[in-house]
């Protein structure tokens, strides 16, 4: 049993498992934190950004001043944002037989794999994962393509040049692997290779291995996977949640008796309790609006936003915010809100019950009906006519490098009455804000990450008792900024086996039995 670790990001995993002569890719997450090194893409001409000075080396050399710009002491690449792909050199990806997708956040690199590596296999994912994954990809492509950038910077990637640059550009890894965003035809081609599956559906791979998706409780259609043969069982846990939010609850029982449990996608903010963060979000939102300010919530078009809208639905009347407009701006806003209401079988029990009444499972339908929540594909068109302040705007992208959010950051950044509330945990909010400095608007960090925390993992492992646990190296030590928090690591016996990017791991399990069939004439 081998595991090829193609991603170093614990919540955006990409691993390849060689298991009984099958090659299975587990997720293909796309690390977008690379975009934080780029200047934002403004929707309308930004005098501030266009006037940023070029970066000059200490010796006065100016050869990079067209590619790199300086803003409040930070240096940014003035080019179309690029993404850090999973490792493609560690093994021949054309040999991958199947790709198993856990949730829509973990499939964002799919077009790079299926369209550029000679991949000829099948991708397995649930329907909501595919549909919402498509929306995320569509939004990403749309956000970048609608602001075409004339120039493309590549000189800075030269290794000799890169080591002269200031941090964090100097320390950026695998910059030669960074790629521009894929196109919609590539997205469509990639998605056409997906075969839809349902929870607990058993899929035979070449008669040797059986794979089964299980509900993971994290997002609509999110799954953990069981990969088993007659005598071996590997569980792949990625992005799971035990909290009661909108998705179907996590299926823990089926993970029992695993020989190996691969554990990824734990919470990125283990010290932040999601309930407390939602409270913090609501309090800051109400305070800002009551003081006449606007609130900007950079977010993905699906996922936590559904829960936030549900909380606000209960909260706005009690907080006296009934007259404050809530805007959701995304090229896929409408589809996202509508999709959420039709995936009834993938929802938690309470929401499923509502469907039979019949009522819409999510209360944002009522918010839309009563005009409290309005959604628009972009800031252009109807939105500019309807726009009233003070208001609350939900829009992407959470990196603040592209999408409509760039416009609002430029528009509202100068006033201390306004607040930007970060709820997505994928990006460092300070890094995200760096190209907007100096900034007068208030910034609040309320990362809401419903994935498993270390206490829950500890309980889960005690419950399912796998023989071996394999996890990213980040989970086997306390976070670097809180080295005393020994509670913030995976604690199990025997100790978990850890992996890092570009590492090949021999899984700690020896095959002892094999089922064979003897033909009657041989016997």
């Amino acid at each position, binding site marked *: 049993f081998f595991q090829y670790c193609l991603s170093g990001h614990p919540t955006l995993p990409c691993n390849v498992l060689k298991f009984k002569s099958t090659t299975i890719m587990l997720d293909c997450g796309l690390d977008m934190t690379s975009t934080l090194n780029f200047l934002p893409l403004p929707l309308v001409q930004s005098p501030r950004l266009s006037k940023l000075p070029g970066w000059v080396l200490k010796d006065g050399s100016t050869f990079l001043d067209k590619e790199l710009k300086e803003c409040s002491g930070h240096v940014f690449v003035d080019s179309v944002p690029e993404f850090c792909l999973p490792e493609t050199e560690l093994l021949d990806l054309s040999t991958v037989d199947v790709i198993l997708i856990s949730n829509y956040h973990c499939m964002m690199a799919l077009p790079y794999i299926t369209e550029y590596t000679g991949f000829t296999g099948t991708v397995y994912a649930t329907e909501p994962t595919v549909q919402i994954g498509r929306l995320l990809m569509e939004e990403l492509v749309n956000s970048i393509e609608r602001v075409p950038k004339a120039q493309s910077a590549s000189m800075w990637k030269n290794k000799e040049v890169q080591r002269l640059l200031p941090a964090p550009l100097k320390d950026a890894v695998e910059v030669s692997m960074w790629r521009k965003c894929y196109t919609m035809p590539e997205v469509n081609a990639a998605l056409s290779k997906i075969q839809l599956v349902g929870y607990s559906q058993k899929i035979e791979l070449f008669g040797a291995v059986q794979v089964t998706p299980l509900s993971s409780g994290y997002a609509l259609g999110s799954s953990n996977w069981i990969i088993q043969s007659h005598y071996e069982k590997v569980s792949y846990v990625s992005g799971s949640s035990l909290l009661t939010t909108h998705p179907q609850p996590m299926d823990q029982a089926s993970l029992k008796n695993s020989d190996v449990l691969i554990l990824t996608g734990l919470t990125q903010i283990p*010290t*932040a*309790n999601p309930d*407390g*963060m*939602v*409270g*913090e979000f*609501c*309090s*800051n939102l*109400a*305070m800002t609006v*009551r*003081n006449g300010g606007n609130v900007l919530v950079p977010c993905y078009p699906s996922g936590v936003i559904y829960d936030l809208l549900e*909380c606000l639905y*209960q*909260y706005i*009347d*009690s*907080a*006296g915010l009934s007259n404050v407009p809530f805007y959701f701006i995304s090229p896929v806003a409408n589809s996202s809100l509508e999709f959420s209401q039709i995936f009834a079988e993938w929802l938690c029990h309470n929401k499923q019950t509502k469907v039979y009444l019949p009522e819409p499972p999510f209360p944002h339908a009522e918010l839309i009906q009563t005009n409290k929540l309005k959604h628009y594909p972009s800031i252009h068109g109807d939105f500019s006519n309807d726009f009233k302040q003070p208001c609350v705007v939900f829009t992407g992208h959470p990196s603040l490098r592209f999408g409509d959010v760039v416009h609002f950051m430029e528009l509202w950044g100068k006033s201390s009455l306004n607040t930007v509330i970060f709820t997505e945990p994928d990006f460092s909010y300070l890094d995200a804000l760096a190209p907007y400095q100096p900034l007068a608007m208030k910034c609040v960090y*309320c990362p809401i990450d419903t994935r498993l925390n270390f206490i829950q993992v500890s309980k889960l492992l005690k419950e399912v008792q796998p023989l071996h646990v394999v996890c990213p190296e980040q989970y086997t030590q306390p976070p670097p900024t*809180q*080295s*005393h*928090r*020994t*509670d913030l690591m995976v604690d199990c016996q025997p100790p978990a086996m850890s992996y890092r990017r570009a590492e090949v791991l021999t899984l700690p399990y020896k095959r002892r039995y094999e089922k064979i069939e003897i033909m009657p004439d041989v016997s």
Partner: protein
Amino acid sequence: MTRECALLLPGVCAALAHPRQPCLDDTCLEKLLDWFRSLTWFDPTVELVQDNPCLTELITSVLALPEPSPSILSFTLQLAGILASSESRFQHLQQEKLLGRLFGQEGPRGGAVWEEASVRSAWVKGVHSMLHHQPALHFLCSTGGMDVIFTLQGDPSLFVASAASQLLVHVLTFSLESETSKPLSTKDCDWPACAQMIIKHIEESLQSSSASHIEQALKLLTSLFGSCFGSCYAAWTEVLWLHIAKQIESFLLEENVQAQPVLANLLLNVARSPVFGGTEGSFWALVTSALEHLTPVQAGPLAVGLLKLCKCPQDVSIQALTVLLQPMDCILRAASQPLEYAGLLDESVSDPVTVESLLSSKTSCAGLLCQTLAHLEKLLSLKHLRVDLPCVSLLRSLMTILQFCNGFLSPASPLGSTISRNLINCFRVQKSALDVLAVLSEKKGCDTLIGSLFDVLLAYLQSPNTSPTVLKKTFQATSKWLVRLQELSCSNSQWQQMEKILEDVFLVLQKRLCSPCWEVRDSSLEFLTAMVKCLREQKEFRQCLLSSEVLRLTESLLEDPESYVRASAVTAVGHLAFITCFAPESPVTGSQYNKENTIAKFQEILSTDSEGFPRRAVINIFTKWLREGCTGQLEDTEQFVSRVIQTVEHDLDWEVRLGGLELVEVFCRQTICQLSQCPYAPVSSAVTNSTPQNELLQVFCRAKLFGFLFRSLCDCDKPVGQTACDVLIGLRGHFYPMSTLENPQEIEDSPAGRGIAWLQRTLRQGSVAQNFPTDGGDGVDFQDPESMMLALGAIDLLELHDELNKSSDHVEESPQSLLQDILATVGTIEDNEADCY
């Protein structure tokens, strides 16, 4: 016993003795027993049983039943015990040969019915009731009763076992105190036989190899030394202690695990006994040994108890304090670099190994700390403590615990890392630590740490991970320490620190007032109210408050959907009004409520809010304003009170109506003081034409006070009637200082006489009075000063007061009613049977 009861009793006894005894509920039988207890308590004569032969007949009949039900047999055992509590009745029952058949060998002791725990329990209770005279004691010993009690000590039913243990204590005490006339010595032969039997049993149990026997004996001794009012003052307890002390010591030294949990309580009860008052002797050495040998969890309650004892020797008190401080010291040492802080204890005194191992374990860490913190909170709350608590180190240790709990502290030792891991997000420990922190604010000497302390408190207030209950405790501790900080700032005129902290506090308060969790909004408002109460005179506080958004946010919470929050908002706005509306400075800008608007808003809440809590809060605030003289001149106040009365008098919530009466009481008192020329001197005659008295009456009548007060006398909720009566009695005391009632004839002849007579009749009906008129109705004009003066004099308010003070079920609770109920139950059953036939 009343004649009526005596007539009913035979029927009841006959019914109870009937083989198909009615299914009376146990409470009925218990009430019946209570009644007999009350009848026999002060009357030792034989008359009760002689005059009511049905009682002995009942016992005889029950004993004659082939298979009495456990409940009637239990009742009979207890009844017989109660009746036999006096020597004369005991002899009477003996003559009837009843007691032996109940409590002796031929009684239920050996039968199948003994399997019932209720029967065994009743037997023990019966014996306990009976044992108040020598013949009963001899009867018990001669019929083998002592062995039965010894056996019942280990009964599977805890109630029976506990009752048996209590009975043994009673028997020993009674035996020693009634059968000896000279001081006892340690020689066994000097002790009465019964006492010797019990002592021997205790000694044998203590030496037994059975853990349960040892535990029973120790519990018995604990009860014995704990029954303070009787036995513990007697010298024989000292003799008894000398008998067993060696054995107790051996339990400690041999570290007998089974015995140790009970030892702390035993030693504490012995220590409390005045017999061990001297500071010499081996007893205190044993206590010291116990503090050393018991686990910190077992020794904790003993240590607290000892520290509360005045007579505890100083060295033992210090040892006890060491036990309590050891976990706190361990925390401090685990968190800090060596020699960074002095620690709480001298290392040579304490052996930290046990405590360290308890704190290192996930299962015991929180338990030990919570127990220790609860003990420390108790000690800190004591007015006089004979040892000095090291408050500064204690505070530092508390801060460390709180920082461990929220993961903010990076420990400097492996032990610290383990403790930190055990404590992170432990709400129990957080709450206990914050409770102690709040009490510690009243102790002097912690001022040097106040800055760091507020860093910890603010971290808790700001953290989204703080649970609502922990947040509430944090608010409570913060408000107490803010008062301390203010005192400190006053003394050294250093206001910058106070201002900075207040700014941070108001910033976080703003956010918390907007929380989606109503508990958080509620406790934030309570915190604000607490701050305003304590700090409203402080200029710096007022400035910080007024420059924040807190005022506006608090006012907006008057519309909160949660009624508790609205109530707290009313209280907060009511207190804030002392700064924003009633202060001599110009009104506050930014607040939508000036004095008139606030009163109008509160009136609106009082008359329209659908929930009781906000309305209660409004009436309480109105009363507070009135008390503090914030409602303006007399004319304004009169109108204000009148409006409030008219709103609350029909309120469905009795607490609101009661609040209205309290407002009226304050108004009356203030008006009397204001209008009487000499506030402390009553008027000279009953009927007076002096201007102040007339004026007073006119004010009260205009404010429509009397209608509200008299109507409240008939309120269906008794506290309202009682308060109204108290207020009226107070008023009558003012207008009729000599307590002379009006001449009835004079009242009848007066123009208002008819109305007064009607009022008297109506009031006699009490809460069943229908259609109490709102405006005079049948002839009494509540706004006519003359009529009201007459009413105050004519109505027997004291009688009304007594009537209202009777419990509402005083009729139903009477013995007669009880007996009638039992008979009615029997009657119903008989009727049903007749129907069946």
